[in-house]
């Protein structure tokens, strides 16, 4: 029952960003320690249209700079690199998730609060800008309502 309620809540909270083609779900921002000015955001972007779409950038008014980042291992080293664009084929999806590609948020203007929502603006190659509401989540155990690390 609890699970169902959570699932329903997630469904209701799902920011349907671009009704026609792009559906963004589970957009969230990692609550960083108050002393940290940088953090990451995550989301799943689904392309329900018939044409491939390209995300060419991201912006956020809550930070000095935002960007799309990929990650790869170089030997034992974890490397982050800027993604110039992310292509999503028709019917496909792009997943930004912990430990993988993510939205880098650098220079927070003020400390975030768990549960607050900040807006991320996805920039598409068509020139369209897609606002996405991302919820700030505290990922520590016994904090926030989303529980600990998975």
């Amino acid at each position, binding site marked *: 029952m609890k699970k169902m309620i959570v699932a329903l809540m997630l469904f209701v909270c799902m920011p349907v960003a671009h009704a026609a083609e792009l559906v963004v779900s589970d957009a969230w921002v990692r609550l960083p320690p108050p002393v940290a*000015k940088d953090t990451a955001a995550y989301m799943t972007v689904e392309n329900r249209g018939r044409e491939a779409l390209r995300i060419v950038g991201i912006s956020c008014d809550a930070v000095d700079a935002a960007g799309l980042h990929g990650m790869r291992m170089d030997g034992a080293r974890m490397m982050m690199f800027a993604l110039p664009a992310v292509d999503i084929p028709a019917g496909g999806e792009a997943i930004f998730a912990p430990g993988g590609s993510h939205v880098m948020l650098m220079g927070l203007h003020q400390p975030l609060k768990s549960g607050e929502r900040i807006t991320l603006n996805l920039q598409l190659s068509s020139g369209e800008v897609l606002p996405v509401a991302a919820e700030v989540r505290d990922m520590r155990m016994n904090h926030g309502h989303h529980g600990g690390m998975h």
Partner: protein
Amino acid sequence: MVAVMNKSLVKYGVTVLALVAVLVVIFWQQFAAQPVIPSALKNMGGDFELQSSQGPLALHDFRGKAVLIYFGYTHCPDVCPMALGVMAAAMQQAGDALKHRVAGIFISVDPRRDTPDKLDQYARFFDPRIKGVTGTPALLDKVAAAWRVDYAVPDQPADASYAVEHSTFIYLVNPDGKVAGLFDEKTSAAVIAEQLRLWLR
């Protein structure tokens, strides 16, 4: 009279024997339970002394505790908070009985931006038992070499926005100060908690 004395002697003897047997079983269990350090980890790690907000902090200060150690930096948006979250969760899952016998150390390889005070505030967000430390680049290079940590800090000013490449191991150090396990930010906290319990048994 003699028979009575014999009876109590026998009783006494049986009690002693039972006690000895129990002790033998306990010692045998302890001995058999001692986990083994994988041979690949035997030439890794070693003592160090770095700077915390409270002054110098050495690995040998943690003798008798199981310690989780991570090398990273506070501007790290993704893997470092993941790793510290896993470490904190593992320490909490190790259980209340071991509360004071588990610890964490977050070593910043980015001393240009990460002061001991900032590291203290950063680390305690995850768990107050995780201590944040750093040192001079020369000292960090030495520690990193001993711990097989690979990292690169770009040559940029402290107020610049830059990423630091670094290895992403979570080290488990046993109560004798030896590296006894290697994990990363994707390891489940339950797995690490189990190892903490094993080494503290």
